[in-house]
C-alpha cells in the first residue's frame, strides 16, 4: 500500500513538473510583455492577457487555404506537443523524479529541432511568398544556432560527465564544480542561442507587423484560430523551456535534490518560479537596449555564440587534458 502511495506521490510530482511549464507559460510571456511595455513608458496589456488571447483564438474559426495539405493542419499540434515534451523533460524544481532518466540534453535539442523542422515545412506548405521567406530565414538561424547549442551541450556534459539533466543539476547545485570559465562562456552562448531560437530582439521582433523584417511571424502568417493558438502556446512554452534550461544548468541552487518532503518541494517550486520571473523580467530589459539586426548580421551574432561555445570546450581540454 505504502509502495503504491509512494508511486502515486512520485507520479504526482512528475505531473506537477509536466503541467507547470504549460500552465505558467502564458503568464511568463505576459510578464515579459508587461515589463517591456513599462520600459517603453507604456501601460501594456494585463499580465493574464496571453491566456485570454489563447482562449479567444481557440474559439475562432480556423481559416485554411485551398491548397493546404495535411501537414499544414497537423503541424501546429505536432509542434506544440513536441515542445511540451521537451519542456517537461527539464528538471524545474526537483531532480531525480520518476521520468528523470529520460531528460537527456541531446534529446531536448533534437526535439526542438523536430519542432522547428515541422513548422518550417508548414510555413512553405501553402506556397505563399512570406511563408517561404520566413521558413528559409528560420532554417538559416537554426543552422547557425544548432552548432552553438551542441557545443554548449558538450561543455556541460564534459564538466558533469553526463548529458542527463537531472544529474547535471544535482551536481551543479553543489560547489564541487568550482569556478569555471567554460561554464560562464556556455551561459553566454546559451543566452545568444536562446534569443535566436525564441525569435527575440535583436534577431527577430515578436511584435513586428512589418513583413520584411519578420522571421517567425512570417512563417506562421497564414495561420488562424485554434491552429494559431497552438503555435502561440508552443512559442510560450519554448520560452519557458529555455528559461528552465538556463536555470537548471547554470543556477540550479535551491532545487530539491535530496529531501522528498512536500515542504521541500514547495520551497523549491517557489524558488524556481522566482528565478523564472526574474529571467522573464530581465529579457525585455536586454531587448529594449538593443536594436533589431539586419539579416546579414545574424552570422556574426550567432558566430559569437559558436565561438564562445567552442572556446568553452577548448578551455575544458586545457585544464583536464584529453
Amino acid at each position, binding site marked *: 500500500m505504502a509502495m503504491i502511495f509512494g508511486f502515486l506521490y512520485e507520479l504526482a510530482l512528475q505531473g506537477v513538473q509536466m503541467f507547470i511549464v504549460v500552465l505558467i507559460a502564458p503568464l511568463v510571456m505576459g510578464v515579459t510583455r508587461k515589463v517591456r511595455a513599462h520600459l517603453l513608458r507604456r501601460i501594456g496589456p494585463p499580465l493574464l492577457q496571453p491566456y485570454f488571447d489563447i482562449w479567444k483564438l481557440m474559439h475562432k474559426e480556423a481559416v485554411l487555404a485551398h491548397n493546404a495539405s495535411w501537414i499544414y493542419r497537423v503541424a501546429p499540434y505536432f509542434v506544440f506537443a513536441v515542445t511540451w515534451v521537451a519542456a517537461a523533460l527539464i528538471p524545474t524544481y526537483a531532480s531525480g523524479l520518476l521520468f528523470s532518466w529520460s531528460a537527456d540534453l541531446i534529446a531536448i535539442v533534437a526535439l526542438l529541432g523536430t519542432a522547428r523542422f515541422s513548422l518550417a515545412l508548414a510555413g512553405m506548405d501553402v506556397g505563399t511568398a512570406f511563408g517561404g521567406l520566413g521558413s528559409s530565414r528560420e532554417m538559416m538561424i537554426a543552422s547557425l544556432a544548432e552548432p552553438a547549442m551542441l557545443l554548449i551541450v558538450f561543455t556541460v556534459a564534459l564538466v558533469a560527465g553526463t548529458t542527463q539533466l537531472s544529474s547535471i543539476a544535482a551536481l551543479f547545485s553543489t560547489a564541487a564544480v568550482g569556478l569555471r*570559465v567554460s561554464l560562464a562562456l556556455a551561459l553566454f552562448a546559451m543566452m545568444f542561442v536562446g534569443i535566436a531560437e525564441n525569435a527575440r530582439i535583436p534577431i527577430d521582433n515578436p511584435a513586428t507587423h512589418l513583413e520584411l523584417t519578420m522571421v517567425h511571424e512570417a512563417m506562421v502568417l497564414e495561420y488562424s484560430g485554434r491552429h494559431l493558438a497552438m503555435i502561440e502556446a508552443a512559442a510560450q512554452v519554448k520560452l519557458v523551456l529555455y528559461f528552465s534550461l538556463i536555470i537548471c544548468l547554470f543556477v540550479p541552487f535551491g532545487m530539491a535534490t535530496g529531501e522528498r518532503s512536500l515542504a521541500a518541494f514547495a520551497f523549491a517550486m517557489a524558488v524556481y518560479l522566482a528565478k523564472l520571473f526574474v529571467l522573464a523580467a530581465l529579457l525585455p530589459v536586454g531587448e529594449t537596449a538593443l536594436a533589431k539586426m539586419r539579416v546579414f548580421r545574424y552570422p556574426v551574432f550567432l558566430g559569437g555564440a559558436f565561438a564562445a561555445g567552442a572556446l568553452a570546450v577548448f578551455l575544458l581540454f586545457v585544464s583536464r587534458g584529453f
Partner: protein
Amino acid sequence: MGTLAFDLAHLLAGGMLVLSFLLLYQDRITAVINVFAWQAIALSLSVAWQSIVQEAPHLVATAVIALVVKGFLIPFALHRIVRRLDIHREVEQVIGGGPTMLTGLALVALAILLVQPVREAGGTLTREDLAFALAIILLGLLMMITRRNAVTQIIGFMSIENGLILAASGAKGMPLVVEVSVAFSVLIALIVFGVFVFRIRERFDTVDVSALDRFRGERRER
C-alpha cells in the same frame, strides 16, 4: 596547490583568452581599446594572484605596471590618438569576421595541442597558463595580421605582450620578469609615441579608406 588557487588562476587566465577573442570580435576602434584595457586589468589580477600563490612579492611590481600603464595610461593615450588624428572609427579587416573567428578557434586548438604533451612535473597550472598564454599570443598575431590600422596593430602587439607576461609570471621563479615587463612597457610607450608623432594611420600602404568611403558615398557595414 589548493583548488581555489587553481580555480582563480584558471578563471583569470581564461578570462584573458576570452577577452582576446572579444578583441577580434569588435568592429569599432574605441571598443577594441576598451576591451584591451579590460584584458590588461585581467592580466594584472592574474599576475597579482600568481605573486600570492608563488609567494613572489616582486611580481606585484609587474601587476601594478600592467594595471597602471596598460590598463589606464595606454588606452587613454590611444583614445586620444583616435580623436586627435581623426582615425577611421571602424576597424578595417583584411579578412572578414567569421573566418577570423574560425581561424582564432583553430589557433586556440593548436595552442592546446602543442602544450598538451608537456610532462605533468611542470604542474597543471603551469601547463594551463602556458596553453592560455600561447593562445593569447597567437590570437594577438592574428589580430596584427588581419587588422590594418596602426592603432589596432598596436593593440594586437600589446595583447601578444599580455600573453608573454602571463606565461612569464606562470613560470615559477623566473628571473627578469619585472625587468622585461618594464622593458616592454617602454617599448609600447615608444610605439604609441611614434604613432602620435608621425601620424601613422595605416601599416604597409597608404590607401586612405575614408576617401574611398566618400567616393562610394557610404560607410562600410563591417
